[in-house]
């Protein structure tokens, strides 16, 4: 029997892998990828819980919206990253630190 906890553990794993990517990868695109993983983990939770919400379909609806929003965010994010690349000739976030204290 696949319980909710199964879903939750999987999503937790994916979430943390995404988190690792965000924190550790030296490529901005990979950070975006990490974010996508985290969002996917969240979506997995939503649909898992949404199974029990037949009245409002809240989980599934939220999941769809989340996918859309994430996609748009990625589009804008990528556009900005390309912009950065044009100015810095690199997309390694470690090398982009003009603004600091």
């Amino acid at each position, binding site marked *: 029997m696949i319980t909710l906890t199964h879903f*939750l553990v999987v999503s937790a794993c994916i979430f943390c892998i995404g988190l690792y990517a965000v924190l550790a990868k030296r490529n*901005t695109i990979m950070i975006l990828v990490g974010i996508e993983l*985290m969002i996917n983990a969240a*979506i997995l*939770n939503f649909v*898992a819980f949404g199974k029990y919400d037949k009245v409002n379909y809240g989980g599934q609806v*939220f999941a769809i919206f989340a996918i859309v929003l994430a996609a748009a965010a990625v589009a804008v994010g990528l556009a900005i990253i390309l912009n*950065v690349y044009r*100015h810095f000739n690199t997309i390694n976030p470690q090398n982009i630190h003009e*603004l600091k204290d």
Partner: protein
Amino acid sequence: MNVSIPNILDQIIASIPLFKPELALIIGFIVCIFLALFLEKRWRNSTFIGCLVTLGFSLYHLAGQLSITAVGFSGMWLVDSWSTLARLIIGLSTVIIAIFIQQRHGKNNGDVYSILIAATLGMHVLSSTSHWLMAFIGIEIVSIASYILVGYFSQNKAQSEAAMKYVLFGSVCAAVMLYGLSLVYGLTGSLDFQSVEHLQGLMDAPEAVITLALLFVFAGIGFKLSFVPFHVWSPDVYQGAPTAITAFLSTIPKVGAIILFARLYASWSSTAFYFSELSTWFITIVAIVTMLVGNLAALRQQDVKRMMAYSSIGHTGLLLMAVFAYQDSSSYLLFYIVAYVIMNLATFIFIDQIEQQTGSTSLLSYAGLGKKMPILFTAFTLVAISLIGIPPTVGFVAKLMVFTSTFSVFQSSGDTGALLLLIVGALTSVISLFFYFKIPLYAFLRSSDQPITAKKQISILLIIAYILTVLVILFGIFPNWVML
């Protein structure tokens, strides 16, 4: 499912009047896109005009909603005095931002107004919903509009870097929040945070999951409000972004977010269960730390915009304090927001004007400018005074009201946290003096080596800024004029 379709449709149609201001915005949004596409090349300011007209319509409809309290769209849309007043503030300040952008980036930038309108719509959504779905969408609209705006005029490295940091940090926070929301949904089965099932679900849930869920949710809101520890992006972004956009970032998105947060906190802290305790605990700690960090970090800044970023972090702490001291009336919170918006807008216009003259936002470049631009710096100083919270300015009254409400919480509960909030709030006001007064310090007390010829020009922006300054004083002396 036993509700018939015509019934639902009737309800939706009945809800549409509540949505009029937003409808105006949506229509305006589309019109602006077309204007930017076709008319902008022939008539340069057409989109700008379109934007103003849109905002005007929206404000007009909002004014009509002033006394309405209603719920529409299956509980997704709340119209009450909070939301209406907040949306009015948002609308009015958006007008100023629009003028700001038009003055500063007049050329060939039609699309920016569409984005501005969309952002406004997002803020409207934030300030008038208690449904997580709407809230999340609102946050995302505002965030993404902000990302675009920061990167929109990117002509140099700093601006694009600011945009990148902003977008990445924001997306991570949004993802974390989304995950948190999924847990909250899992705990309650309801997405409306004011609903009974929602609270019921939170009451029953185990502490560990609640902690996880709540902290994750707060992360997303924290990003928008830039409270500690989610504030780190803001100094870099404020400094990197064009001043007009910084003015936008530091004011309007916070208004929407704080209203949302206030609703959330009001709902979540209303019980005696663990999650309420946690919320209170969280907001107290965060408010204290935010005030301290914002003000202390600002001490060492040499760039005005960066300094203002920390300053607005500090003010966020006070806003949180206002939220913490929530009682059944919202007036002091709204008052603080009004004061905050007026002060910040004025400040950034001044910063921009000086930047136009000297080409720098460094404090060092302000040396001796007081003599060359006496009126501007006098007004700037007055605003700085207001930011510190010294009478007879609006900043003082706002602070006083926050202290007042916090004190009433303290008196009735004897909560040490409230007392600490008060003390830290008071002390950080003193600390804030150090850095705010760097502005007049450099401008009036120091003298400069290089001669700067101040161009005598009266721009519409300056006039707006002066009007705002007058308002700062006027509302400081007659605060009831704010409370209509």
